[in-house]
C-alpha cells in the first residue's frame, strides 16, 4: 500500500526546506453526513520529522488543520542524499511512516 505521506525535501546550502502533504480526512467531528449523522472526529494528532536520529520538527495538530494536511518548514543541516523520516499518529491510534531522501 502506498504511503499517505508525500514529501519534498530540498537541500539549499546549509538549509533543507521540507514540504509535506499527507492524505488524511482530518474530520473535525462537527460535520454531518448525507444521513444527518455526525462524522466522528478523525484527525492526525502528532507528526514528527527526524533527521540523523533527532527530531527536527514536531507538529501537534487539532481537527482545525485542513483535510489532506500540508506543512512547510526548514532546518539547518541535512545534505542531498540524507534520509528524512516522517511519521504521524492520529486520534484513532492509526499511524504511518515514510523515509524520504533529501534532494
Amino acid at each position, binding site marked *: 500500500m502506498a504511503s499517505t505521506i508525500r514529501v519534498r525535501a530540498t537541500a539549499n546550502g546549509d538549509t533543507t526546506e521540507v514540504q509535506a502533504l499527507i492524505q488524511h480526512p482530518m474530520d473535525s467531528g462537527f460535520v454531518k453526513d448525507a444521513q444527518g449523522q455526525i462524522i*466522528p472526529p478523525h484527525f492526525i494528532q*502528532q507528526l514528527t520529522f527526524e533527521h540523523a536520529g*533527532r527530531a527536527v520538527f514536531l507538529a501537534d*495538530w487539532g481537527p482545525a488543520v485542513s*483535510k489532506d494536511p500540508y506543512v512547510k518548514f526548514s*532546518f*539547518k543541516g541535512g545534505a542531498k542524499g540524507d534520509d528524512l523520516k516522517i511519521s504521524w499518529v492520529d486520534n484513532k491510534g492509526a499511524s504511518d511512516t515514510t523515509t524520504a531522501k533529501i534532494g
Partner: protein
Amino acid sequence: MDHSLTRRLILQGAGSVALIGLGLSATPAFAAANDKYPEDAFKQKTGADAIKALYGKTAEASDKVKLDAPEIAENGAVVPIAVATTLANVTSISFFVSENPNALAASYVIPEGTTPAVANRLKMAKTCNVIAIVESGGKLYSATKEVKVTVGGCGG
C-alpha cells in the same frame, strides 16, 4: 463534540506508546517539552484559555512576528497561513483561530537548528482573528490578523 476517544487514548498512555514506537529518544533535545500531545489546550474554547493551557503564560504583540494570511479566505476549509520571525531562540510556534469551536489549531515544536517559520493550511469557521504565537527565550510574542471568511470551513 466527542473527544472521549482521544481522552481514553491519552489516559491509557497510547499517545506516548506510539511515540516510543516511532523510535523517538526518551530525552527530547529541545527546550519546550511539548512532546506530549497538549490535549487540554486543544479542548479550550477561547484563544486566551488555549494559550494559557499550552504555555502557562500570556503573550505580548510583536512586530517581529510576521503573520501571513489572506484578507478574504477563498474557502474556510483550506486557508493558507504562515508565520516567520526574526526573534531568536524560538522553541515553539502555534496558531489560534479565535472563533473556531476550539481556538488552538496547531502547535509546532521548533528544535534548535530549525528555522522559526511554519506554513500550514487551517480551517476557519467564520470571519475572525488568526493569532500566531512565537515562544522565544521563554517568553511569548504574538501577531494577529483578521481573515474574512464567507464560506465557513467547518462543513456544509
